């Protein structure tokens, strides 16, 4: 069971990123059942992770189910503060954002939409 705040937050981030990406994909592919299944699975995992996080570290969002013993919404780290974005020592320096199988942001983004639009750009500039 993950307990470090950073690790929990990154787990939640990864799930929410996957959800967001599936959200956009499903907007233009509303009948893709395998994407819909992935959305539903991810959504359930995200609810579990969010509840777990909020139980230990306070509200992530106003109106969550977690009962608040005191009002710490204002005192927990704000997103732009460095303390809100600690990096776990020993793990990769960058958030492994993407799907649970370790696909990168770009790979997840392109998971089913290998259309003419993205390809032209991805070949783009050397960085």
């Amino acid at each position, binding site marked *: 069971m993950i307990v470090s705040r950073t690790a929990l*937050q990154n787990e939640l981030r990864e799930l929410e990123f996957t959800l967001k990406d599936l959200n956009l994909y499903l907007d*233009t592919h509303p009948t893709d059942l395998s994407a819909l299944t992935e959305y539903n699975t991810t959504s359930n995992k995200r609810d579990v992770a969010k509840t777990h996080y909020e139980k230990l570290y306070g509200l*992530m969002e106003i109106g969550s189910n977690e009962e608040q013993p005191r009002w710490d919404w204002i005192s927990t780290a704000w997103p*732009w503060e460095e303390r809100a974005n600690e990096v776990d020592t020993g793990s990769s320096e960058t958030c492994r954002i993407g799907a649970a199988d370790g696909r990168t942001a770009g790979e997840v983004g392109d998971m089913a939409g290998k259309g003419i639009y993205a390809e032209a*750009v991805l070949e783009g500039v050397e960085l």
Partner: protein
Amino acid sequence: MWNYEKMLQYPIKIKNANPKLAKFILTQYGGPNGELGASLRYLSQRYTMPFDEAKGVLSDIGTEELGHLEMVGTIVHQLTRNLTPEEVKRQGFGEYYVDHGLGIYPQDAGGTPWSAASMASSGDVIADLQEDLAAEQKARAVYDNILRLADDPDVREPIKFLREREVVHFQRFGEVLRKAQDMQGKRKFF
């Protein structure tokens, strides 16, 4: 309505201040191709979209852009924290500092404040979607330029993430545009 989640879409923790770089990156907060304009463009255009996919994509990408606005604001904030007056002067940040201190203000890299003239909302599905495709490419190009100017990996990683999202949004807008064109081909009225 919107709910606020107290977390960045991608983590940002910048160890070293760099006000010169902050001034470049500020253009993605309030410049002509930045995230403020992107969110307002999509969230304004969606009212006249004639079919569901378009309403969904504009609402959901517009919402994600608000999260990106928060990320860019965070990068600029962390690059300019705890500056001494000497550092402000030495690093070319004086012109900004004298008007805004270390506050985050929507302007481009040259100091021009954000303007609604940098976006369109035409009420026409084809015109708006073509503008959106161009907007994503222009934003991607600006992130490319930033990546050429930024060495700090703490800055480059979130910028690369933002750049990647522009490409994904371009993909989704392209799919919506194709749908709009198919519907026009069927002489379906908007």
